[in-house]
């Protein structure tokens, strides 16, 4: 049931649910569908995995988590799955992705670590890298400095 209405609905919930007594009615009004239709569609989008998570999206930095590190490793293709699973054992690892290597950027495994300060994150990263299976891999850590933009994606663009 991925139709144009769902597309618009996602665009609205990506922007943010109104903070008022009947938020789904407000969205329904904008889309010309009923409040219960909005709710049923959102349940379905969530059940089918198109919405992975629906809830409060916090701003880590404002809440004292000032160190946001993107950690990258160069891992041979055949080892990627094994190493990714290893990274996910650490509770402070929130995201883990494989991305292509480029001549200018020889890293293919990425994870994110959010921490209160740099030294905490560096200690966490040291724990990851201290294990023998991580030692052969070149790596870098890229702390964020300024955030120029953080918002939900805008879908349904022209």
């Amino acid at each position, binding site marked *: 049931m991925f139709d144009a209405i769902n597309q618009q609905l996602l665009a609205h919930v990506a922007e943010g*649910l109104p903070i008022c007594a009947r938020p789904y009615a407000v969205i329904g009004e904008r889309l010309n569908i009923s*409040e219960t239709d909005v709710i049923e569609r959102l349940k379905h989008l969530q059940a089918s995995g198109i919405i992975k998570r629906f809830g409060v999206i*916090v701003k880590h930095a404002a809440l004292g988590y000032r160190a946001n590190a993107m950690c990258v490793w160069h891992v041979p293709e055949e080892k990627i799955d094994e190493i990714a699973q290893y990274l*996910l054992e650490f509770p402070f690892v929130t995201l883990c*992705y494989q991305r292509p290597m480029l001549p200018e950027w020889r890293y293919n495994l990425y994870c994110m670590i959010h921490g209160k300060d740099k030294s905490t994150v560096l200690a966490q990263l040291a724990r990851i890298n201290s294990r023998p299976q991580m030692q052969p891999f070149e790596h870098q850590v890229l702390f964020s400095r300024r955030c120029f*933009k953080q918002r939900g994606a805008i*879908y349904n663009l022209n």
Partner: protein
Amino acid sequence: MLTNLQKKLLNDFQRDFPLTLTPYADIAAQLNVTENEVLQALHELNQRQFISRIGAIIPPNQIGVSTLAAISVPENELEFVAAQINRFSEVNHNYERENALNLWFVLIATDATHLNNVIGAIENETGYDVLRFPLEKEFFIDLSFQLDLTNV
């Protein structure tokens, strides 16, 4: 300072937000407060920029085509170039990071052609090459995260 109610709202409702007619009243009932208190607390968290929104996280490429991208920009031009990039509505995250490759942003477009066009436009406007790092495999995506809010 955050109230206990605000701390609970921040930590306990990052996922499974109620899909009911009156979600905020249902949260209030669960926390033994009034609906108005919940609405007030969330408005304040929003105003003070502690939350980005109450919204949906949609994995990359479920809808449209997205990519992580990066460019190297001299420090003294960074703010200007970041603003040029932010003007594109297809860009939803844009961070300076500590590396020679120092500006990292995420783009989402309706399809591959649209994405190419936007990246081409960014390259033209900024005068810098954009490196693309599209997702090849996702091992985990959650971003819900237990915050330690004792000193906030």
